């Protein structure tokens, strides 16, 4: 069977070059699919109120809460769809949807 | 055997007519023939009339249909006479065998059939040999005898082997079936005998 590890398929790819049955061999490729433009409301972080409990990080369905050394640093706006769950969960009101 | 032998079986659901056709096919197969054994599936239930067929030949058999002009008819239940047209398509030179304790000449009259009628009391034979009404082995013996499909000795020895395989742990069933087979072979009566 052919290996397609490095094949990138776009609408112009010919049928002979596409993977059989549309199988996807690449790993972690959802990162290249930017969903930030689905967003109508944007989460805004107030670092002065934040207690870094990371409940927002745990609840985010799109892994769009950025954390470094156990501390929240901001949002991945390329992938955040603006669902607002982080804002709803925050116990101290440090995330507002604007 | 120059020609294919085509047999039609009549019986009632639950009497083992399909099994009889399969057993006969199996016996002929062991004797080196090409075979077919198949029932005609209808809305059969216990007691409803059923039909089964055999084709036996020295040459490969390719035909796949029911049999309308049999070379031999075997009727496992005499009460079917008058209900089912058991002689349909049977030419007058071809025989019919009926499981009954009545005289073949009486059956011949009942059937209104011009050709040879054979009878065998397969029910009594099986009750005597096996303790149960299980007419298919004695009927099979009668079919082998009347058709001349193979000699008694050949038939007996290959059925013995078949029974040994099938009832390996039931020696009394083997002995009973062989006894039924032997008795039926001897006791087949013909309407043409004086």
């Amino acid at each position, binding site marked *: *069977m052919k*290996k397609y590890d490095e094949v990138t*398929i776009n*609408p112009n*790819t*010919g*049928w002979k070059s*596409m993977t*059989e*049955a*549309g*199988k*996807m*061999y690449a*790993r972690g490729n959802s990162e290249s699919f930017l969903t930030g433009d689905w967003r109508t409301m944007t989460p805004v972080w107030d670092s002065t109120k934040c207690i870094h409990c990371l409940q927002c990080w745990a609840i985010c369905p799109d892994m769009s809460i950025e954390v470094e050394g156990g501390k929240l640093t901001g949002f991945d706006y390329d992938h955040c769809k603006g669902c607002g769950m982080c804002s709803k969960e925050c116990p101290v009101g440090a995330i507002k949807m604007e | 055997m120059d020609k294919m032998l085509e047999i039609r079986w009549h019986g009632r659901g639950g009497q083992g007519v399909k099994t009889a056709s*399969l057993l006969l*096919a*199996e016996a002929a*197969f062991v004797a080196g*023939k*090409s*075979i*077919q*054994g*198949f*029932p005609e*599936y209808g809305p059969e239930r216990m007691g409803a009339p059923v039909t089964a067929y055999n084709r036996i030949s020295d040459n490969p*058999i*390719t*035909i*796949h*249909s*029911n049999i*309308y002009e049999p070379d031999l008819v075997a009727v496992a239940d005499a009460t079917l006479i008058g209900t089912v047209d058991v002689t349909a398509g049977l030419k007058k030179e071809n025989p019919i065998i009926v499981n009954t304790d009545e005289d073949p000449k009486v059956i011949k009259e009942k059937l209104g059939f011009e050709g040879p009628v054979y009878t065998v009391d397969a029910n009594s034979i099986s009750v005597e040999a096996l303790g149960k009404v299980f007419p298919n082995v004695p009927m099979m013996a009668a079919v082998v005898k009347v058709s001349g499909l193979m000699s008694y000795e050949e038939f007996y020895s290959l059925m013995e082997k078949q029974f040994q395989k099938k009832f390996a742990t039931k020696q009394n069933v083997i002995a009973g079936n062989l006894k039924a087979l032997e008795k039926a072979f001897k006791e087949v009566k013909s309407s043409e005998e004086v």
Partner: protein
Amino acid sequence: MTGKQQKVSLSGNEAIATAMRQINPDVVAAYPITPSTEVPQYFSAFVANGQVDTDFVTVESEHSAMSATIGASAAGVRAMTATSANGLAYMWEVVYIAASMRLPIVMPVVNRALSGPLNIHCDHSDSMGAKDAGWIQLFSEDNQEVYDNIIQALRIAEHPDVSLPVMVMQDGFVTSHGLADMTILSDEDVKAFVGEKDYTGGLLDVDNPVSMGLMDLQPYYIKHKRQQVQAMENAKKVILDIAKEYEELTGRKYSYFEEYKMEDAEAAILVLNSTAGTAKYVVDLLREQGKKVGLIKLRLFRPFPGQELAQAIKKVKALAVMDRIDTFSTWGGPVFTEVRNACYGQVKDTEIVNYIYGLGGKDTDANDILSVYQDLMKIVETGKVDCYYQYLGIEE
């Protein structure tokens, strides 16, 4: 012949179950339906007796049977099922999924009428209904052929140039429930012929992660369909190669179709499955009377060997295509329309007529076939066709 073979007497369903036992698939998921019920029934006995290593999945419907088979096949293992008629209809949407996911599933289909009115007997409405689902379709004259076809089907399905599911047909009751003499290979020979399944590339191949059955939108879907038809095209060569290999093993010859006494034939019947056997018997009878008649028995319906068939049909002056199903187009059965299509521009001097026969198990005997040859010989004689499309042997 290099294979060790043994003469046996088996019913058609026993023949299928025996082939499956010898193939020893990893997974069988099936739901019983007349007349294929005996296939999973016999096979489950093999499982219970430890004669196979198969995981036998009892499911609650045919939709689940095919779904479980698809899941197993996608995981990378060898998976099979069996069905008939309404069972196949109930699988419908997933039958297409199996083909489009390019899963090498082998499924015996014991042909039975798709009701109604309610009927459990043989015709080809079930498998012909699935002719455009993307499966390879092989038809079998008798118990021997269904056994041989199942074993070859596995190799065809799993060939890397093909990677498509295969349906193997036989006539319900007529051959499925009829005991007949036939020849089987030794377990070792079948094992060697089908070989070990290549488990790489499946969902359980953790070293090579893969996602399957993904959303396939407008720019891509049609291209995957184009790939499927290419796989069908590739299958044509693979089917012949595997038939040749199988012939070396067994001495039994297979191709897209069988030509029986066609060398100098003027009139011929083209038919599938068990009726081809009855037609051979009639051809022999007519040949004894000096009549120039022949038979084309189609084994491969998908992919359709149109080019090759046209070459064979060219030889005769009149051809009757027999369909054990009607399309209700009022324009002929599926085999007829495909055959005539294949002959377009290729065959100029052959009259091709259609007979619909044997629906719902109506027995088709030698006399019925004889009447078709008589009609054909009249066409050859007079050059005139009274009727291009008719039902065979029914009272008006």
